[in-house]
């Protein structure tokens, strides 16, 4: 690894005006497996790639429910994520208790960003080694935010974080304009396509390594009437995986084919 004179303490600027410890923390996020988030007018969704340490191990949890209306996907140090998600849950509870109101998503994200910022400025601390995609629904509709250990948070139409997330970002940048009016099924299909871009050549998405998080009305593939945040894992995501266009197929736009099963045939 490279060595640097100005990286042993996060309170010291380098001559270039950079905080190396903070940048290393951002690297920790890039080491984590990828997560993708998308937003339409009606839904926010998360998709994440779960890793396992080996054949005998279970897959590492990538998504956490914060409250009925908020959920997160993480990339980076899971233990740091648990500390932060705990904090978010407390914020959500205190908002419910004090004001009988689900905590506004933007304020929740600002709260953890402020918490992370302190760690980039105070002596003897270290930045969090984890990044979040936060989705949620509040009075102003569905939202998607990115949180990073530098203390920054931004709202997005679509975003990806984690290992090889640039490939997913490229896919999202190409298609994001259609997301606003997408159905939930199409939105998830876009998400799966984007997430697939982050995989190595010989790997593919399956029911074991993929998590889907949803806020908004349920899909036709779900056996629920639940509109609050939920995490789909295992066999329940098979119907969504089935909607994906195979990788080596010609890059057809993921638009549904014109229906051929009309019960009235027009005469020539």
């Amino acid at each position, binding site marked *: 690894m490279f060595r640097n004179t100005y990286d042993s303490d996060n309170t010291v600027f380098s001559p270039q005006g950079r905080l190396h410890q903070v940048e290393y923390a951002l690297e920790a996020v890039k080491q984590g497996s990828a997560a993708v988030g998308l937003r339409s007018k009606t839904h926010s969704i998360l998709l994440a790639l779960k890793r396992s340490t080996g054949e005998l191990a279970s897959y590492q949890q990538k998504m956490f429910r914060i409250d009925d209306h908020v959920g997160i996907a993480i990339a980076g140090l899971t233990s740091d994520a648990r500390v932060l998600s705990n904090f978010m849950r407390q914020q959500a509870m205190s908002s419910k208790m004090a004001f009988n109101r689900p905590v506004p998503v933007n304020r929740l994200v600002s709260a953890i960003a402020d918490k992370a910022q302190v760690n980039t400025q105070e002596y003897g601390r270290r930045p969090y080694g984890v990044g979040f995609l936060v989705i949620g629904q509040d*009075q102003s509709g569905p939202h998607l935010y990115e949180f990073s250990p530098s203390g920054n948070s931004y709202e997005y139409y679509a975003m990806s974080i984690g290992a090889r997330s640039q490939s997913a970002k490229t896919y999202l940048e190409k298609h994001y304009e259609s997301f606003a009016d997408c159905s939930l099924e199409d939105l998830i299909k876009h998400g799966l396509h984007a997430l697939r871009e982050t995989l190595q050549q010989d790997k593919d998405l399956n029911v074991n390594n993929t998590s889907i998080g949803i806020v908004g009305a349920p899909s036709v593939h779900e056996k629920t009437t639940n509109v609050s945040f939920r995490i789909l894992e295992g066999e329940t995501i098979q119907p969504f995986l089935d909607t994906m266009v195979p990788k080596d197929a010609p890059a057809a736009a993921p638009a549904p084919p014109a229906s051929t099963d009309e019960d009235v045939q027009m005469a020539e």
Partner: protein
Amino acid sequence: MDHFPTNWGRPRNDGFDAYGTYPIAQRPYNGLGNDVFSEGVQRTQQPIVTGTSVLAIKYKDGVMMSADNLASYGSLARFKDIQRLHPVGTNTIIGAGGDMSDFQYIQALLDDLMVEEFTEGDGDGHALGPGEIHEYLSQVMYARRSKMDPLWNSLIVGGVKDGKRFLSYVDLLGTTYSASTLATGYGSYIAQPLLRKAVEGNEDNITEEEAVKILEQSMKVLFYRDARSLNKYQIAKITSDGVAISESRSVDTQWSFADGIRGYGAQTQ
């Protein structure tokens, strides 16, 4: 010569034998009843300077509330220019009866809360509405009663948010309830039946003028019957346009009938 050092003069706390010099049989008692500070901490056991009734009704365009300008000191009409209706944010009003110093504390609490709201999320579309303010107040009131140190008020919280009218009550015990007409204190006996008769089932039809009439009539009846009231009161309305609190006003009253009442005025026989 007194051989007990503890008797040589100590600044305070006679209840503690610091040097262990007394024989056990004479050692000063440290337990309950002997604490020199036991009467030093006191909690509110009764209101001192008080406001009387607050009335509130729902009507077509929102919520209307009224309260007089009197703060009594026992039966003395001590302060005659006290506003008991307090705006919180852009679409909420609280009205208070009970202890006026506790009410001032609540006003300060809510003003601080609004400053905090402003700093952390101004204009993000999540301003606190009447429902949130009411929940917050009920938590504060219940927490204080649970410390055996209540804020001695009955509060009415009214407002309009997202086109919805809100009207709810909370008191020193943390008890809450909602209705389309609310009244606190003496008004809950005298004015509430009048308000219910005029408003219930008609909430969507009563115009602003009619709502003012209903409250004026009830305030007049209260002034006749409530010895802690004043013929000087304010009316606040909360609509989707925001909050408006009127200048102080009064109603015309007739006292000629009182001449015939024995016990009223100077007695001639």
